């Protein structure tokens, strides 16, 4: 399974992606969680130790092509090798790899940025499930940062701004070779909200996560949802989402 969580900023991508990755790992799958956002987020939701560290600059080497500077993984290094070496161990056996986090006004991550992208181009296949958390908005998902995904989960709140982002992502997906794109309605207050998300985005809604005070409590405490409110309605809904995606994969 290769899944990327996308949507408007604040829709709940990181919280859901972190819980999803851990619950998927609990089914016995070998899970790699990828955080492509230069701002911290997924590490909190997963419960991995906080760190800014991404890939070291020397994972890539520069070369010239048609007079332009380009980057590739250094000789002898593969995407799988990078993951073995640099992905950190998270709860439930999830491996976690992140783009290095932004710090300071003149932050330059050019080598690490390209290194991360080269790893995305060469992710391990057989035996791994990939769960990616992308930055909010429409700029990146279907270009370089999300191209590894076979399924995009658009996290949508039942409000006009979030629905609009969902519609735009749907259109962009169609222009990008139509990968499988599904909606996850988040912070819903009733079945009517899930219907609004379906109608507002034009996407099949594969999961509906109810509004759950446990999510806010976890975020305030900086604790993963699965540790703060494992028996709450939001965690239960993410379990259903994992099962729904696994069933689709198996079909």
């Amino acid at each position, binding site marked *: 399974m290769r899944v990327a969580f996308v949507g408007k*900023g*604040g829709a709940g991508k*990181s919280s859901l992606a972190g819980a999803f990755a851990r619950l998927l790992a609990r089914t016995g799958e070998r899970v790699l969680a990828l955080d492509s*956002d*230069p*701002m*911290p*987020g997924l590490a*909190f*939701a997963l419960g991995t130790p*906080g760190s800014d560290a991404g890939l070291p600059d020397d994972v890539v080497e520069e070369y010239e092509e048609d007079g332009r500077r380009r980057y590739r993984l250094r000789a002898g290094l593969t995407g799988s090798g990078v993951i073995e070496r640099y992905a950190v161990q998270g709860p439930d056996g999830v491996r976690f790899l992140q783009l290095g*986090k*932004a*710090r*300071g*006004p*003149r*932050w330059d991550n050019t080598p690490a940025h390209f290194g991360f992208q080269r790893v995305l181009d060469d992710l391990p296949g057989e035996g791994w499930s990939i769960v990616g958390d992308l*930055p*909010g*908005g429409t700029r990146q998902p279907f270009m370089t940062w999300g191209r590894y995904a076979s399924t995009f989960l658009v996290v949508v709140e*039942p*409000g*006009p*701004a979030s629905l609009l982002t969902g519609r735009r992502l749907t259109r962009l997906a169609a222009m990008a070779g139509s990968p499988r794109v599904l909606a996850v309605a988040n912070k819903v207050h009733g079945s009517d909200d899930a219907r609004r998300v379906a109608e507002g985005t034009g996407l099949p809604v594969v999961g509906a996560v109810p509004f759950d005070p446990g999510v*806010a409590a976890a*975020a*305030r*405490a*900086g604790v993963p949802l699965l540790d703060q409110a494992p028996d709450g309605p939001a965690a239960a809904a993410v379990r259903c989402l994992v099962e729904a995606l696994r069933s689709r994969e198996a079909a």
Partner: protein
Amino acid sequence: MLGQLEQPGGIIVADFEAGLGTVLRLGDTPVDVVVVVVEPTAASLEVGRRAAESVTLAGLGRVVVVANRVRDDADEQRVRAAFPSCEVAVVPEDEAVVTAERQGVAPLDAAPDAPAVGALAGLATRLLRAQAA
């Protein structure tokens, strides 16, 4: 474009993309105030700290922190502790704002007397006074 908009008596309010990439490219055109909006969650406070630090180091403008969706004193203290040297404006969690956003209506139109709207009006007044001083 932002640089060309400035004119005497005019006020520009810009809503930036999440993160730091866009705001830091303002480098050559500093602004009067950079409002860093945070929620009292661990991730949001961490992102806000980085934003405030970067804006300050880059000399972009005075940082004012807006603590949004504050429920209680503990929330407010969490934000103040994260930004000990910044001015902090508190906007309470307000169901009227949630409802307005779900309806696609500006909170100022839907609920002009709501506590969150009042807090933002107070912030606007403070910023204008500081500008005039």
